[in-house]
Structures are given as structure tokens and as C-alpha cells.
């Protein structure tokens, strides 16, 4: 007797515990093996790019908070850089340093969530993510101290930052920097060498170097494929050329490499933070910027190395108080390009961890 088998279609998402938001994967399965996968997104589309066209340049900053809500500070920074480029606004020295401190703290916070939820997707029941959220909470405390919010910071302004850091910030930051390496060691002891994690993630979901370059991937996903590409070094913005740090890269481009690259980037961020804290000068934190900015007619592209990859803002000005065109180059959307190539041939369980290792944020993918 011949048993007739046929592949069947499973919709993973939009409401699924581990699609990190409202992402949907229309998967064709042959038993447990993925035969085909088609990503469907747009469930969280809020029209941010269009909304921004009728807001003032300053009024757009709260909108950028809501793109990648796990890394609002980085979004603020990228947008402010673009506007400053467009209007030619200088930034005071102290503000530059504060921005770097915030962006690097944000990178650690975002990577903590990325790694934690990746490990959670691997099935380590809540433990790693809870440990990491505990440390992220300490970073959020610091953010709350300077800007009064824990998620949508809205801290950076065109030409500086909204207000100076309070007196108690630097001692707290110092304490955090002293503690954090110990915590990272603990995460490594917990799962770095775990046999099951190695078996699950080594060699799984390989993004080959060629493909990574061709799909213009960026961020830890790109670097895990073995490319030494970091906007902080490749096109130094702000004052990143003053700091010493390494760019960790992976060798193969599998899920494990992506996880390791993120952990190592956290250590590098701690290095930058230490240097920035020592060099922090005194002075103004906000240059004299008119209340309603009217940049000259033109266009500008400001990009930074956000935790998830190259985040860019492309702005066109028609000399009015609102941008004529506001486009976001969202890193996670572009990193998703190679998703199908990474997944086909693996099992359902791998689909989840490959997807988790890319570290997406639907607020940014759908905008």
C-alpha cells in the first residue's frame, strides 16, 4: 500500500507566541520540514512615513520612538543626525558625548532583549530572558532618570539633547559599568557552552557571506556572516572616531554566531561607555536652534549603526517646517530579505530560532 502524503500549509503568525509581534509566515511543511516559506507583513502599519510629512521637524522625534521601540534612543539619534545634516546645525561637544552614552546603553538594552528572546525561542524556559530583562531594567532606570520615560524616550533633539543629565546619573552609570561584565559572564556560563544550544544553533540557518552582501543585510546579522562592516567605523558619525573598540564578527553566519556577535558587541559597548564617561566634557547640551526649523531646500541621509543594523533616515526638505519626504531605512525589514533562503530545508523548530536570531521589531518592519 502506498500512503499518499502531501505538504500542508501552516500559518505561523500573526498571533503566535514567538513571532515577536504580528509577523506572519505562510509555511509549507512536509511533515516537519519546511518546503516553502513566504513572509507576510504589514499588520502593524501605522503610516509613520506619511504622518511625519505633516509634523514639524521636532514633532517627528516622538514618531521615531515608535519605530523600533526597543531602541528608541538610536532612532532619535539617527533622525536628529539627518536633520542636522539637512539644516547644517552644529552639536555641542557635551551633547555628542551624552548621545554616544545613550546610544551605547541602548545597544546593550536592545541586544539583551534580542539574545534573551532568541534563547527563549530555543526553549530555555524564560530563564535567560528574565536574567537579561533584569539588567535591561537597570538600563531603563538610567534612561528614566535622564528623560522621564522608560520606553519612548524622546530625549534627543535637533542640535543636542533635551536636557542635561542629572547629577546622580554618572555615579549610577559607573556602578552599572562595574557590574555589567559580571552579568555577561553569567549569561555565558548559563548557556554559551550548553550542548543542546550548540546542537540547536550551530550550523543552523546559515546566511552565507555572498548572500548577506547581496541582500544588503546589516548589523549583527551581517557581521555574523564574517563581514567587518560597522557604520561606526565605515562612516563615523557623531564622535565615534574618538573611541577604541573592536568589531566582533562571526565566522559561519549561523544562529550561534549571531548570538555570540551580540554578546560580544555588548562588551564592546561597555568599553565605549567607559571611555565616553571618562572624556565627558562640561558645557552646553543644546545648540541654539529655532523653535520651528526650516531647513534649506535639499535632501539628506543620516544613518547610524543601530542595535539591529544600519538605520537611516532620508529627508527631503522644501524649506517648510515639515519634511517633504521622510523615509526610514529600517534594518530589520532588509535583514528579513534572506529569510526564506535561510529557512528552507530546516524543521519547524529551526524556523523559530532562525527567525529569533535575526532579532526583528515589528514596529520598525511595518512602520
Amino acid at each position, binding site marked *: 500500500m502506498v500512503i499518499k502524503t502531501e505538504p*500542508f500549509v*501552516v500559518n505561523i503568525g500573526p498571533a*503566535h*507566541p*514567538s513571532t515577536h509581534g504580528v509577523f506572519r509566515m505562510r509555511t509549507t511543511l*512536509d511533515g*516537519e*520540514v*519546511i*518546503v*516553502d516559506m513566504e513572509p507576510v507583513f504589514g499588520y502593524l502599519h501605522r503610516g509613520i512615513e506619511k504622518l511625519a510629512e505633516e509634523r514639524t521637524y521636532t514633532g517627528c522625534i516622538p514618531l521615531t520612538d515608535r519605530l523600533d521601540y526597543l531602541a528608541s534612543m538610536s532612532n532619535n539619534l539617527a533622525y536628529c543626525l539627518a536633520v542636522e545634516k539637512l539644516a547644517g546645525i552644529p552639536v555641542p561637544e557635551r551633547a555628542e558625548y551624552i548621545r554616544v552614552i545613550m546610544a551605547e546603553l541602548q545597544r546593550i538594552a536592545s541586544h539583551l532583549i534580542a539574545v534573551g528572546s532568541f*534563547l*527563549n*525561542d*530555543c*526553549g*530555555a*524556559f*524564560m*530563564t535567560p530572558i*528574565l*536574567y537579561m530583562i*533584569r539588567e535591561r531594567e537597570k538600563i531603563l532606570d538610567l534612561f528614566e532618570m535622564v528623560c522621564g520615560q522608560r520606553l519612548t524616550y524622546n530625549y534627543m533633539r535637533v542640535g543636542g539633547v533635551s536636557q542635561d543629565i542629572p547629577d546622580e546619573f554618572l555615579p549610577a552609570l559607573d556602578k552599572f559599568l562595574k557590574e555589567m561584565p559580571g552579568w555577561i559572564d553569567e549569561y555565558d556560563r*548559563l*548557556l554559551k557552552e*550548553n550542548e*543542546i*544550544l*550548540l*546542537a*540547536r544553533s*550551530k*550550523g*543552523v540557518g546559515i546566511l552565507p557571506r555572498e548572500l548577506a552582501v547581496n541582500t544588503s543585510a546589516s548589523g549583527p546579522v551581517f557581521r555574523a556572516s564574517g563581514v567587518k562592516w560597522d557604520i561606526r567605523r565605515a562612516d563615523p558619525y557623531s564622535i565615534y572616531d574618538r573611541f577604541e573598540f573592536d568589531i566582533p564578527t562571526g565566522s559561519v553566519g*549561523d544562529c550561534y554566531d549571531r548570538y555570540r556577535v551580540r554578546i560580544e558587541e555588548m562588551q564592546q559597548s561597555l568599553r565605549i561607555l567607559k571611555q565616553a564617561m571618562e572624556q565627558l566634557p562640561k558645557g552646553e547640551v543644546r545648540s541654539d536652534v529655532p523653535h520651528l526649523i526650516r531647513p534649506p531646500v535639499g535632501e539628506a541621509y543620516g544613518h547610524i549603526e543601530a542595535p539591529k543594523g544600519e538605520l537611516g533616515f532620508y529627508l527631503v526638505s522644501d524649506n517648510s517646517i515639515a519634511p517633504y519626504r521622510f523615509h526610514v531605512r529600517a534594518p530589520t525589514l532588509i535583514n528579513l530579505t534572506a529569510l526564506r533562503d535561510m529557512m*528552507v*530545508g*530546516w*524543521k*519547524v*523548530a*529551526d*524556523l*523559530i530560532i532562525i527567525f529569533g536570531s535575526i532579532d526583528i521589531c515589528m514596529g520598525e518592519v511595518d512602520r
Partner: protein
Amino acid sequence: MTMAALPPDWPGGFWLHWGVFVVVIFVFVMATIMGFIWFERRAMAIMQARLGPNRAGPFGVLQPVADGIKVMLKEDIVPAKGDKVVHWLAPVVAFVPALMIFAVVPFQGGAILADLNIGILYIVAISSVTTVGVFMAGWASNNKYSLLGAMRQVASVVSYEIPVVLSIVGVVLLAGSLSMQQIVMAQDIPFILLQPLGFLLFFIGALAEINRAPFDLMEADSEIVAGFHTEYSGMKFALFYLVEYGEALAISAIVTTLFLGGWRGPLLLPWLWFLIKVILVFFVIVWIRTTVPRIRIDQLMALAWKFLFPLALINLIITAVEILVWPAGSLWVLVPINIAVMIVLVLLWSRFFKLGWGKVEV
């Protein structure tokens, strides 16, 4: 230490003994399952730097009761295109065998519902029936996630029965009996020392059979939502939940009986020893669940057939040879030999595993 070989002279004869013990065991098992649910949640929470349930009752011990009340008041949803009868029957089929295991678990000398002379065989047979219930649930739900979960469950139970049974046979060889009572009485040295490899294989296999981490891929919440009980709600869901913990309790009790010397121990009351050992084993299960990630279905199969199965066979042969050539001598001599054998074999077999396999060309 002298012990009664059979249930003691129980006043009132067979039926009274039967009736009282059924009630006592049912109450005991239910209370212990409730306790275990609370214990797991609290222990896990503390290991995760949280507090865990602490509102209902002192230290939150009444949390499972509150959950039970809530779950009974919930709407019972049956999928429109599901098989209604099977959907209704599945939790019962899964739940009853999990409870029936306790019929042969000796809580202390003589405190046993039925001292079957094939006690351990009975456990092996009855515990696999739960799988039928699980598969019925997966099939009747008419849900792809449920079906995937049920298929995984069947595949893993079929594979893991073999190493589990083979490692039990080692114990039976040493004890010379299939009766749970006799196995405990034979353990002047706990069998964990005489059968270290057998214990390891049995524990891993048992974890896989009862769907505990790292083998919980039948209900892997991050992959297939909730596996076979995705479509269950209300009391039916609660029954599956009870099955999960009932099986965990049963496995803890069996490990205690087979390898840790059952109720035997100095100073304390026998049943207290039994309870302490069961809780200890359960704590280890919880501890493992807190720490390790989940393995993949093909890796699960590979572990069963390439690692546990050959090692269980070798373990059986070694045990048999030892009993043959050293029938009357002191068993203490065998302890270091067996531990050395275990270490060598595990190291040897670990070398056969590779990383990064499992991709299928499509």
C-alpha cells in the same frame, strides 16, 4: 531492618483494603500534584530571580486551588470541525492511566494498593496508554499545531520506551523480581550506585516520555503554540495539565523506588523518606527545566536510537555478566566498576555526535 514482604494484615479483608487505599491514594496523589504545581512554579521563579505565586494563601500554596476554580468556570470550547466525541474522550483517556500508575507505587513497606508481582511491567504498560489520549487530542482538535504536537509525542514515546525498559531490566536483574516492593527490599545499596548508567538512561528517557524539558517539544510553546492541547480549554485543559504533573510525580516516585531505595532510610519515618526523595527527584526535573533549551525532533530521535538504545543494551549485558560471574560476592565491589564503565561509555559515545546536521534538501 525487618520488613513485611507483603501487605500487612489489614483489618477487614481485601475489599476494605482496596477501598481505603483507592481513596487514600487518590487524595494523596491529587494533593501532591497540587503541591508540585506550586512547588515547580515557586522553585522556578526563585531560580529566575522572581517571586512566583504568592498571593493565594500563605506563600501562595493555594494558587493551584484558585487556578482549578478558575479553570472549572471557564467555557468549554470544542472546535467546530473537530471530532467532538474523541475531543471529549481524549483528556479522560490521558488522565486515567496517569493515575493508575500509583496503584503499584509502594509508599512504605506494605503501603501499596496492589503488590503485583509484575509491578514494574504494569507501570511500563499503563503509562504508554496516556499517549493514545494525547494523540486523540491532537487528531480530534482539527488543528495543525495540535497534530504536529501529537505526532511528536507518539514518535518520542515509541522511541523512548525501549531504552527506558532496557534500563529497567538491569534493575530487575539485580533485584530478581518485578514487584516494586521486592525491588525496594533488594536495595541494601541504592541501585543508583549499582546501576549509574541505567539511572542516567532511565532518567533521560523518562524525561522524554513525560514531556519535560529539554524534551518538551510536544507542547513547545515557542514553536507549536501549545501542541496537542492548543484547542482545549476549561476542565479538559485542566485534566491535561494534571496529567503532565501526575506523570512527573509518577516518574519521580518510580525513580525513587527503582534507584534511590524507595522508602528506606535511617531515622525518619519510611513514608517521609519516600516523600523527601520524590521531592528531590522532582526538584532535579524542575532544575533541568529552568536551565536547558529544547532539542529538535530529529535530534530527539537520534538521541534515543544512537545514544540511549546502544548504551542501554551494553548496560544490560554488563549487568547480566556481573551477576553471572559474581553471584554471591559483595555488591560494593561492583559500584566503582559500574561508575567507571558509565564514564567511559558516555565519553565514548559522545564522540559520535556532530553539530550542524539536519538540513533536508528540498
